[in-house]
């Protein structure tokens, strides 16, 4: 992989992959919902939407089709630490992809009519998410687990902020954060690295750097006691989530905790763009055996995300119809207590390492996925940790896992959330 920094501060990562006549271009910005202040929650994600609405040199009505004419796909996403945009298309579209991303960085329009139209699209996205009780519980659990750090508010934002934010709020935020010295451009595919770098310089070299960004410096204070919440709302199914404050991806505890999660719920790998589309191998996992095999839950999952600041390790379970949430919680916490007390076995460590090794291979099967991984870890400041991931996973010992478990799983570090469904009052109305 070639790594370069342009004079304006843009970090460029290029990796040649000649397995298919394709190239994937990702432009990453070090801005996410943790950079948002009260009153502007959701602004990062809204800006992401606005950055598909035309630029000085890409008229609004020509956005549609600009990459499709190369058979290409495009997308973007926003999360707590980052905002990113991608195109994957045939290699001859490289210039077009670089042009689009350079325009996105420097010349987006933010037409007032488009800002208003997108307000309701985003509120619709928020409401679609709220239709899912599991999603609603996740949002409430995170807001309860964090009381100070901006990880506490959802990336999509709070409804009242989405209703009141102005075009100037959006545009000002865009101008402050969409600068080359706050971005990483990644190219992976059937390209010549030297040639690609020259093209990058042509499209991005003249964009002026921005002022240093004044980041929110709040750290989450240590949690000193268990927190609980219960959502009671119409529904058919009960859900449980237990969240523990967990280490950032730079911490020495991160890879031991990744192994620990594999032992509890099956290995997920490290690619949040692709890994979670295939469920983990979990039939032998401790929590699967304790909850699903014993008939208490219909599913269980664990989530440990690589993040810049300490985030959460969350275990989620769907209670089987007829099983009280208290019984699911009791069984789940009992397993975590055993793990905290006794650690894991050598056989479990070996299996978890084998699973993670396989997942790292499976999740790097396309130029799009490889480019995602490079940009994601560069943006959260741990590209080295990602590149060394196979070795770091292989080096995890039983003691490492045991000490990580002792630090993570005290009751005082957890937040317990219930979605306790109320009977439905729905009815069917039909007109023919």
């Amino acid at each position, binding site marked *: 992989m070639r790594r370069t920094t342009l004079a304006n501060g843009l970090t460029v990562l290029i990796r040649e992959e000649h*397995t*298919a006549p*394709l190239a994937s271009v990702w432009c990453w910005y070090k801005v996410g919902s943790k950079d948002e202040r009260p009153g502007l929650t959701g602004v990062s994600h809204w800006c992401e939407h606005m950055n598909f609405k035309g630029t000085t*040199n*890409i008229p609004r009505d*020509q956005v*549609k*089709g600009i990459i*499709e*004419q*190369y*058979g290409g*796909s495009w997308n973007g996403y926003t999360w707590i630490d980052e905002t990113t945009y991608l195109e*994957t298309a*045939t290699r001859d579209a490289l210039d*077009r992809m670089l*042009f689009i991303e350079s325009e996105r960085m420097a010349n987006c329009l933010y037409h007032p009519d488009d800002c*208003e139209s*997108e307000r309701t*699209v*985003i509120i*619709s996205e*928020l*409401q*679609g998410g*709220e*239709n*899912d*009780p599991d999603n609603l519980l996740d949002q409430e659990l995170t807001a309860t687990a964090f009381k100070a750090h901006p990880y506490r508010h959802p990336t999509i934002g709070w409804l009242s902020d989405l209703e009141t934010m102005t075009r100037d709020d959006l545009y000002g935020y865009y101008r402050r954060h969409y600068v080359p010295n706050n971005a990483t451009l990644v190219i992976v595919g059937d390209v010549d690295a030297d040639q690609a770098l020259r093209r990058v310089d042509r499209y991005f070299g003249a964009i002026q750097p921005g002022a240093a960004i004044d980041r929110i410096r709040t750290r989450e204070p240590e949690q000193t006691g268990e927190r609980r919440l219960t959502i009671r709302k*119409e*529904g*058919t*199914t009960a859900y449980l989530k237990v969240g523990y404050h967990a280490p950032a991806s730079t911490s020495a505890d991160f890879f031991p905790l990744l192994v620990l999660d594999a032992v509890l719920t099956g*290995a997920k790998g490290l690619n949040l763009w692709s890994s979670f589309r*295939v469920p983990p*191998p979990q*039939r*032998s996992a401790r929590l699967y055996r304790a909850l699903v*095999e014993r*008939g208490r839950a*219909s599913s269980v999952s664990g989530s440990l995300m690589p993040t810049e600041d300490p985030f959460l390790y969350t275990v989620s379970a769907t209670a*089987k*119809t007829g099983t009280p949430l208290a019984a699911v919680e009791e069984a789940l916490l009992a397993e975590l207590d055993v793990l905290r007390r006794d650690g894991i076995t050598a056989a479990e460590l070996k*299996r978890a390492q*084998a*699973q993670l*090794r*396989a*997942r790292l291979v*499976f999740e*790097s*099967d*396309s130029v799009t996925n490889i480019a995602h991984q490079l940009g994601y870890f560069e943006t959260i400041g741990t590209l080295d940790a990602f590149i060394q991931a196979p070795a770091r996973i292989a080096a995890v010992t039983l003691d490492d896992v045991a000490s990580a478990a002792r630090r993570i799983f005290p009751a005082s570090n957890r937040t317990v959330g219930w979605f306790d469904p109320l009977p439905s*009052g*729905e*009815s*069917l*109305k*039909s*007109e023919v």
Partner: protein
Amino acid sequence: MDLVSNRHTSDFKLQTSARGLSPAHAVLPNGATLLTKHTTTTPAVAINVAMGAGSAADPPGNAGMTWLLSRVIDRGTALRTAADIADELDSRGITLTISVTRHLFSLVCTCLADDFEPVLALVGDILTAPSLPEEELATRKGEVLTAIRQDEDSPAVRASEALMALLYPSGHPYGRRTKGSTAVVESLVRDQLLQLHASRFAPTELTAVIVGDVERSRAADAAARVFGGWTRPAPPPLVVPASAPPAAKQRVVIPMMSKAQADIACGFVAVARKDPDYYACWLMNHVFGQYSIGGRLGDSIRERQGMAYYASSSLDANVAPGPLTIRAGVNPANVDRALASIDEEMARLVRDGITQKELDDSRRFLIGSIPRALETNAAIANFLQTEEFFGLGLDYDERLPDLLGAVTLDQANAAARRIIRPELSTVVIAGPYQG
């Protein structure tokens, strides 16, 4: 600087020809079909084994039986306990995904190339000799019942299932819920599942696709060892009748007042995969509800009016004519406006047709996306499985650009008039909306 005009003139056909998949195809003496493709992108192998035994084969009155079989089939065999299977999969980091469509029952996984032979043997054992232990069946039944209850709480699922039941009434296989009802699932017993397996699973119905870092001969040898010795008579062919299109406009509201967003599903019975109009329908639908963000529908409902996070249409051509479905998720206050916009777009499509530019744009996109669609082992395996199921030919990936290229504007617009009948539309709205 005019950098956004279309200056791209590459010949995608040449690229896809150069990349032609050219899979190896074989039929074993017992009738099982084998497709293999050697790739070296990653040291991994995608295994995709499908049995022509989807939910359309559910016995009358027992919708959901095939789905329940899919939940328990991998929990014990004549040779292996559930714990043995769990250990074999988990120790190699493998997730075995078992899915059921209307016509196929599929076992899909990706393994490291070093693990290929034992994993294929495991997949074969699961598919051909399941033991369906009683205690496993009881546990999986509980999971399926919970999943059905979850579906009942989802406006998107409720709208979609109700639409299919209206388009395919009277117990038609395409109108039934794949997971079935709680009453049926509770009533099903082990002997019924064993009987279903014995009557529908046979080598003549099996297609094994292997794509990845194994030489063709190695893949073929392993598949012959795993599947070649299995004997069972071919089941009688499954006949799926065509569904008579609804004779009148239908509209159903499923109020779910505690939800935040309403889901709209609107549809028509469209075409079978082998219908001569299929490619014209595909392109027409792509213009209407797919291109970029949801085609014309997305343009109107999301981009211009800001009413929905998603608005699109899909075409699910199948053995019998499948549906063309329009979907949108909207704020309850916007349901009527969104429905009016869908009606307007349907009327415009039928009245004015699509334009030559729209047709060319969609065609260029679909042809140009072939290399991307066939990049990963799993995607190639899925493509080959579809190719075999519908009898599209081993060179389908190479012929596809020509098949799309041959569609004329008149054909695409005739397809629109044939399928989109606004006066006979079926609409379901599920969510916080009373109608």
